[in-house]
């Protein structure tokens, strides 16, 4: 597995129609890298280019778009590169091979692992104590040209808060003693309540932001809660994404 730190980046230039033992050279190289445990590789097709023979390959006219330049790139540790390089020399044929010194800032992780990590990052856990926050605003309150309650919810999402729910009231009054009625169908001035649950630390960090948003009247209160269960259905989510694709 590739680790963060110094590594080598290898770039192999071949022609699209270049062959290696009857198969396309680029796909043969990709297969070779795949079965030799290389961390990852990418094949790119160029639009135009020329190589050692100084013959321009271009995709300008579809009919004569022949032998376009192909680039196979991968990043691996120095030892691994040294191990597989002789074979790459053979496979690249007349093509160029370039090696660059590089630094892996963040190694790629498999989808499953990164999801597990994301779950770990969510500090809200089942069977723990947390805080619940209630935010009371008016339906007609606005923040930067959008409804305040929606802006608050978006703000919560942007700050990775575990969850928030907006409720619409049918009657109420607050600090300014004005009665908000939401019971009639055409009313747009209902009292709104947003409930938020997350750890105290995260909610305290967010308080100044919310404080600024709820400038024109509103109430923010906080209380202790016990979190009984907090889960998210990854599998379900993935299935939905697949269905959409």
């Amino acid at each position, binding site marked *: 597995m590739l680790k963060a730190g110094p590594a080598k980046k290898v770039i192999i230039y071949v022609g699209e129609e270049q062959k290696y033992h009857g198969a396309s050279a680029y796909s043969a190289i990709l297969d070779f890298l795949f079965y030799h445990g290389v961390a990852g590789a990418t094949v790119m097709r160029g639009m135009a280019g020329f190589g050692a023979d100084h013959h321009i390959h271009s995709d300008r006219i579809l009919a004569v778009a022949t032998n376009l330049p192909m680039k196979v790139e991968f990043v691996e540790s120095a030892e691994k590169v040294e191990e597989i390089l002789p074979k790459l020399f053979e496979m690249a044929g007349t093509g160029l091979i370039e090696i660059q010194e590089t630094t892996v800032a963040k190694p790629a992780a498999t989808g499953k692992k990164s999801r597990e990590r994301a779950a770990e990052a969510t500090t809200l856990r089942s069977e723990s104590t947390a805080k619940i926050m209630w935010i009371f605003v008016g339906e007609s309150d606005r923040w930067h040209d959008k409804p305040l309650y929606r802006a608050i919810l978006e703000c919560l999402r942007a700050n990775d808060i575990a969850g928030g729910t907006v409720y619409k009231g*049918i009657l109420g009054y607050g600090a300014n*003693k004005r009665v908000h009625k939401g019971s009639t169908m055409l009313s747009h001035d209902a009292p709104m309540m947003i409930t938020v649950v997350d750890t105290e630390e995260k909610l305290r960090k967010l308080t100044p932001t919310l404080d600024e948003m709820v400038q024109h009247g509103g109430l923010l209160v906080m209380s202790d809660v016990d979190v009984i269960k907090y889960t998210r259905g990854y599998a379900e989510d993935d299935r939905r994404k697949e269905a959409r694709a």
Partner: protein
Amino acid sequence: MKLEGKAKMLRIYFGEDDNWKGQPLYKAIVEKCRTLDIAGATVFRGIEGYGASTLIRRPHLLSLSHDAPVMVSVVDTEAKIQQLLPALDEMVVEGLIAMSNVEVIKYMHETAAAARS
């Protein structure tokens, strides 16, 4: 009016059809809160629920018979809430009143905001 630091939150649950002296109970409670100068009260209508009577309250979208579950949320200092409790006790014949400790982060109204800026 100022409200900050430790406070109490009341949640009162009953039915939308409950009445008090000829008007809906939720309206009566909000009015009572206003006469007592309570910081604020908000009424929410639920979509389904059951309570002390174990009768499921399920309002139908198109029918005119309601009796949806209703929740009134009230926040103020403990002293003010204590003033309100006897009245609620009398008004809420069938329902639930729950109280919890809360911390007020912000209590703000427009005139105060205007005065500050």
